[in-house]
């Protein structure tokens, strides 16, 4: 049974007022009707009481408080004490650089799309950077990440070079998937990015399988393996059968996986509240026997605190965690989405909670780095992104010979032709002109 004494619910950190979010919480209550928005402090308190009434797990851990809350309280008393900060300078700069890379890259994607350099469905991650950075920067190279179609930034955070991602978006042969995948299918064997899936929910079982391999390596192959898998997906996916089926299997077998819900409240034009009977997604974790955590996904430090705990649980073999990150996408669902349904006031509210601005403020206020150092990072990232576009532009488009490659790992799968030879031995096959 997964409900061991070590599980704990980290209550919504916003519930305990901190210097950063206090002035914002009242604002959010006025703008949105209380029932429609789960990020505000007053609702956070409501969440706490709901917890105690309904969830047996929270009853057990009701006295436990999040680490970040304790640290913040200390910080209020003595903000000059560097040892109470959540991050070191190095960590802060890494996080900052990663989020700026994500933002700059996506902005460039939009530009390139409107200039006709990339096509099809392109889904940008602007606004959600704290989730990707907060989680993925904790991982080792061998850990796996599975995402959805909104995967550019997950790939970048995991370490796939910007050049390869941009090339892939341009459909060039130097892309990470040789131009065969596109925006929605970013894969990297080297960096263990297992995709990139166009149908929502489709990646969750794949992530569960990667976590299963990790457990199998440990228990059957007796290897020293503590690899963890992160599955990222949105609020819309949480109404999909595959989500629930995988929560069950992951908890049942205590797989080393963290289910990260990027709840940006909208599934294209469908509001999360119109689609979901109980919109509190984190609650669905305990129903399957794993901890469910809700965290402010616009704050990279809070996400990171939760991630440290969840990834640590998985690595120690204690099983899966469901983390609901409340976040927001600043742009439409995709570059083809006119984004007419979302209330401008809601968008404005979240624009004030831009995760990059928040981290910058934290770094500067706590004197972790200077304005100049941050500007240097921004400049460096601009160059990286410019370089990736240049590289992608100069790269060749796939030749016809690439058409039939990679359909099968073993190309004998195309069968035996009328002449008795395997079709893949036909020279027309390598030219890409063979009829298969």
């Amino acid at each position, binding site marked *: 049974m997964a409900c061991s004494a070590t599980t704990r619910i980290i209550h919504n950190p916003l519930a305990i007022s901190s210097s950063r979010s206090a002035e914002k919480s009242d604002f959010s209550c006025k703008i949105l009707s209380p029932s429609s928005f789960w990020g505000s402090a007053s609702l956070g308190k409501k969440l706490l009481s709901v917890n105690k009434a309904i969830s047996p797990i929270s009853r057990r851990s009701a006295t436990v408080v999040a680490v970040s809350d304790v640290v913040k309280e200390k910080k209020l008393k003595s903000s000059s004490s560097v040892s109470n900060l959540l991050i070191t300078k190095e960590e802060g700069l890494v996080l900052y650089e990663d989020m700026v890379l994500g933002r700059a890259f996506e902005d460039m994607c939009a530009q390139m799309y409107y200039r006709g350099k990339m096509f099809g469905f392109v889904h940008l991650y602007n606004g959600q950077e704290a989730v990707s950075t907060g989680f993925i920067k904790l991982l080792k190279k061998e850990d796996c990440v599975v995402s959805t179609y909104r995967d550019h930034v997950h790939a970048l955070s995991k370490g796939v070079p910007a050049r390869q991602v941009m090339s892939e978006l341009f459909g060039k042969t130097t892309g990470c998937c040789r*131009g065969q995948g596109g925006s929605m299918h970013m*894969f990297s064997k080297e960096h263990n990015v*297992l995709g990139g899936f166009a149908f929502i929910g*489709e990646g969750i079982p794949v992530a569960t*399988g*990667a976590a299963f391999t990790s457990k199998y390596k440990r228990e059957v192959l007796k290897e020293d393996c503590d690899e963890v898998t992160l599955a990222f997906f949105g609020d819309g996916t949480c109404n999909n059968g595959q989500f629930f089926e995988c929560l069950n299997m992951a908890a049942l077998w205590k797989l080393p996986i963290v289910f990260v819900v990027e709840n940006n409240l909208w599934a294209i034009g469908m509001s999360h509240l119109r689609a979901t009977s109980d919109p509190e997604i984190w609650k669905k974790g305990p129903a399957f026997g794993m901890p469910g955590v809700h965290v402010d996904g616009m704050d990279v430090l809070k996400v990171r605190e939760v991630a440290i705990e969840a990834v640590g649980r998985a690595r120690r073999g204690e099983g899966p965690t469901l983390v609901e990150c409340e976040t927001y996408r600043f742009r439409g669902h995709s570059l083809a989405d006119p984004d007419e349904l979302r209330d401008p006031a809601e968008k404005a509210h979240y624009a004030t909670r831009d995760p990059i601005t928040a981290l910058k403020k934290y770094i500067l206020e706590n004197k972790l780095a200077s304005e100049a150092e941050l500007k240097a990072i921004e400049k460096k990232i601009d160059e990286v992104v410019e370089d990736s576009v240049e590289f992608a532009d100069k790269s060749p488009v796939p030749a016809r010979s690439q058409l039939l490659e990679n359909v099968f790992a073993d190309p004998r799968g195309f*069968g*035996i032709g009328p002449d008795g030879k395997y079709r893949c031995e036909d020279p027309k096959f390598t030219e890409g002109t063979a009829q298969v």
Partner: protein
Amino acid sequence: MDRDPRVCVMGEDVGHYGGSYKVTKGLADKYGDLRVLDTPIAENSFTGMAVGAAMTGLRPIVEGMNMGFLLLAFNQISDNCGMLHYTSGGQFTIPTVIRGPGGVGRQLGAEHSQRLESYFQSIPGIQMVACSTPYNAKGLMKAAIRSENPVVLFEHVLLYNLKERIPDEEYVLSLEEAEMVRPGEHVTILTYSRMRYHVMQAAKTLVNKGYDPEVIDIRSLKPFDLYTIGNSVKKTHRVIIVEECMRTGGIGASLTAAINENFHDYLDAPIVCLSSQDVPTPYAGTLEEWTVVQPAQIVAAVEQICR
């Protein structure tokens, strides 16, 4: 499973129960509950799990308790098994085997009597094979496990009780080759899985009547072995396809098209395709008998085509 510790089995009741048709009997005792994994009833998700495991180094064999249940896993089989090697630019391989009992049984009702080979055949990136004898079941299973491609292996509910002497030494068959069951001169009969036995029964009658049919078990449903098939067509000039698939969009339909395209000049008569009726398989025994092709129909078809 002895040879390669990465080979594992996943499916409903494959472990402690030994499989719905006892195919995996005893394996859980020998290899443990993780290598022979009893899954909850979630076909789409555990098939997807097998894909994820395959991408990260394991070689899973997924069992559909009945092949029909794999319709629930169509998303994962089509999008992930079939496509990920391509969309990842060749970075990830998916060496899974998806297998299970299918076909029309004895009054199992419509949903347990499905032939999914016709539904799966268009998926790019997968191979499909159908076994029909203990000998080729073993050989094809080994080949499928060792293949780097995702393979769907169709077994038949009524063929599990067959007994045959098979070699002690190890053998692996080719996934892409067809099997010459009975060489002949007058007509080529192409078949697979259970219909092979109806064809052989008809062949006995035909031989008594003076005909010499060549019977080929195509085994590889996707891709077709056009060499073996072609050589036969060039010899006999007449083709009859006998299959358990439905008529519309079945394996026979594809095979007819492929033969017409490649060997049209060698045909003396239009290809005859004998398939199951396009009806949901009825429960009543008599009706069920009339949905699938019976030996008498095969005999009649041969007599017709050889006139």
